């Protein structure tokens, strides 16, 4: 158990070091979301009502997430994957990658929120609730897309397949998260939002459990 933990943290650290060494990738992600938000601002040119604000925000998050996570397995060289393969438990690899992507996506989400609030007036009334929704949403998006990215890297296919395979799987999660954050925007109380919160947590745990169980089958060549 102790070894597993230290391996897990080492993998997580490894991912972060890689990201930090290659800052270009992170910058390109930030510029990508910035450009998307700016395009939507130019196309709307007016104050958004809460429904559209919410939908637009999550759609941009979805595309940013796909872009960010699609490369998580694809960027690795075959040699490195073989090296990991000989040394590590596959379930640890997927957990470490998922956790790293959650951190990355939460960071992207916060920066998106900031840029969004600059261009579009912030309609959020219950800010804490919205942030929790943002974290839970990043969690689910990363977990699904990381597994799909692993799958696609095994299929030796392009990143476009990540979107094709990932989007239908994300429908239930996205619908719930949009409902949840809409309640937060409207400033509804926790009691109103509780079923959505429970469903989100349940969905996230199901997704993580499934990728923990299924990833080892993808891993062996």
């Amino acid at each position, binding site marked *: 158990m102790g070894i597993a933990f230290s391996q897990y943290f080492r993998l997580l650290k490894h991912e972060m070091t890689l990201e930090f060494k290659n800052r270009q990738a992170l910058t390109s992600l930030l510029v990508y979301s910035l450009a998307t938000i700016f395009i939507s601002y130019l196309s709307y040119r007016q104050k958004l009502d809460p429904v559209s604000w919410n939908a637009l925000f999550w759609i941009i998050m979805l595309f940013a997430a796909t872009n960010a996570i699609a490369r998580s397995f694809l960027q690795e060289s075959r040699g490195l994957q073989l090296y990991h393969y000989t040394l590590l438990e596959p379930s640890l690899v997927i957990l470490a990658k998922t956790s790293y992507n959650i951190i990355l996506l939460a960071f992207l989400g916060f920066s998106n929120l900031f840029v969004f609030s600059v261009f579009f007036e912030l309609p959020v009334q219950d800010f804490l609730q919205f942030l929790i929704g943002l974290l839970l949403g990043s969690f689910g998006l990363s977990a699904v897309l990381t597994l799909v990215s692993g799958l696609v890297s095994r299929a030796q*296919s392009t990143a476009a397949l990540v979107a*094709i395979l990932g989007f*239908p799987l994300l*429908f239930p999660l996205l619908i719930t998260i949009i409902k949840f954050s809409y309640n937060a925007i409207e400033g509804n109380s926790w009691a109103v939002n509780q079923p959505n919160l429970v469903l989100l947590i349940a969905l996230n745990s199901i997704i993580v459990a*499934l990728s923990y169980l299924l990833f080892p089958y993808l891993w062996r060549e």
Partner: protein
Amino acid sequence: MGFLGEVPRMPILNETIRNLYFHVTMWMAMLVLMLYNAFYGILYLNKSNLYYDLVAEESGRMAMVFGAAGLITGMIWANYTWGAPWVNDPQLNGTAASLLIYAAYFILRNAVQDETKRARLAAVYGIFAFVMMIVFIMVLPKMADSLHPGKGGNPGFNKYDLDANMRMVFYPAVIGWTLLGAWLTSLRIRIRLIENKNNEQ
């Protein structure tokens, strides 16, 4: 019996209630076939026998056929009772999404050349897709208002309007459509096995 049998005369529904024998029952056949798809996916991951993958693929294909048929009959029904073929109903959206998921499943299958790898990747995706689909068409509609019976304050069918006469057709129809699906799937599987044999020679 399905077309001529005595059915309760309900306002709005009227004779369209006979669609229950087609729409609902095809849906159930689709669910059984999708369950097959996921189940044989798990079997394949454990045993690595390509036959299991063949069963999984063909049941997935037949599930899509039944899903599309159920969707079309449902849309015809909705056109007469709810006034439009497509209303913003969580169950409708859910089934459209699950058909998309299975379309993606076949795209994945076509993207991979190697047989065993294709089988493994498809099995993993199929299991994941099945769980998500169950969440989508079983859990989410219960949480939102739906026009379907038994949800969002609408009374369920079995409470009063599924009378004894209708049950006499409904239950055999469920079994019949499911068996028809299983039979068609088994035909496809046998054709594929013969094709494989011919290719080897």
